[in-house]
């Protein structure tokens, strides 16, 4: 039967998601100090059967990786946490409805650059969706979000002039550049709907080749 549950509740139970690696986080109940243990359960919205997350039973940490259980981004989810201390317990405290597709954060794209005398070629790679194991199939977030685009900034280090490009495919060639000049490239992922933006990647700098005829 249910224990007597006067323990204060876990607080701020919420999902933190990056590239669809979905981790449940919470804060310890107020004023409980050390020794608190937790149990976690989750459910698929519309199905509603609560399922215990066994790997997060009687844990003392305040997070639980539910990526595996919430990997179908066509579904939405709830998760819940209960605290235990000295034979007492708290109520189950739930998240709001979690939609991985619209609530995940996306890492910046990988950027690789090469140059000729008067142009720079930029190859952009969107991060992969979280996967169960390294051997698992890698799914690019570009496949998950059909509307995924890249915002690319190209800076002429000498003149400090900057250009902006918005491209849908993953390669960009910037022509008509000055030979023997350093250019720095940075890129961001932009999904139009649902509205999602990554941060900007770090800058990748490269120099165009010197003009052989000069």
């Amino acid at each position, binding site marked *: 039967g249910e224990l007597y549950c006067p323990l204060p509740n876990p607080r701020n139970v919420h999902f933190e998601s990056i590239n669809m690696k979905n981790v449940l986080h919470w804060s310890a109940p107020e004023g409980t100090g050390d020794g608190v243990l937790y149990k976690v359960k989750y459910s698929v*919205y*519309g199905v509603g059967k609560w399922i215990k997350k066994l790997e997060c039973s009687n844990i003392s940490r305040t997070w639980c990786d539910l990526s595996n259980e919430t990997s179908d981004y*066509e579904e*939405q989810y709830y998760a819940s946490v209960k605290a235990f201390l000295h034979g007492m317990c708290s109520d189950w405290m739930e998240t709001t409805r979690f*939609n991985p597709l619209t609530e995940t954060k996306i890492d910046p794209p990988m950027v690789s650059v090469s140059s000729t005398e008067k142009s720079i070629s930029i190859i952009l790679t969107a991060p992969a969706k979280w996967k169960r194991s390294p051997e698992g199939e890698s799914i690019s977030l570009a496949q998950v979000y*059909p*509307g995924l685009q890249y915002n690319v900034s190209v800076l002429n280090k000498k003149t400090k002039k900057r250009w902006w490009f918005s491209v849908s495919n993953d390669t960009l060639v910037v022509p008509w550049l000055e030979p023997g000049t350093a250019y720095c490239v940075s890129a961001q992922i932009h999904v139009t*709907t*649902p509205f999602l933006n990554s941060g900007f990647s770090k800058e990748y700098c490269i120099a165009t080749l010197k003009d052989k005829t000069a």
Partner: protein
Amino acid sequence: NVNEIRSGFTAIKANIQARDPIRTVSILSHPHSLHKIKSSDKCCIIHQLFNFYMDRVFKHCTTEDSYINRKISSIANSFLSIKRKLVQCHNQNDCKCGQESMEKFKQILTNYEGLNVTSAAIKSLGELDILLDWMEKSR
């Protein structure tokens, strides 16, 4: 308009979904997922769903919060303008409703009618992101 609906819904999502305590039932996603609908049936289902939201959802979603009510009516207006375009597209294109898609839409109505009107309308409104996610994915 879809972006307007999406941003309008994002602003009220937590509030509306918090008014829906029923976890075991979904109007749109169970037992049949919209994502399993054949592409040939999509035009018909989108058309049916827009009518569903206009006729059976928005008008039953009045809350005590005027901000929420304003957002709901702006979403409804965006739906209305999309619906007008859909009617033109419906007339011009082969927007046939196959038996399978009608079965799926009937299931949606069954889910809706399994609850009292206000709960069903609030739940349907809280599932707008399910509709938008599916529409955008199949764009």
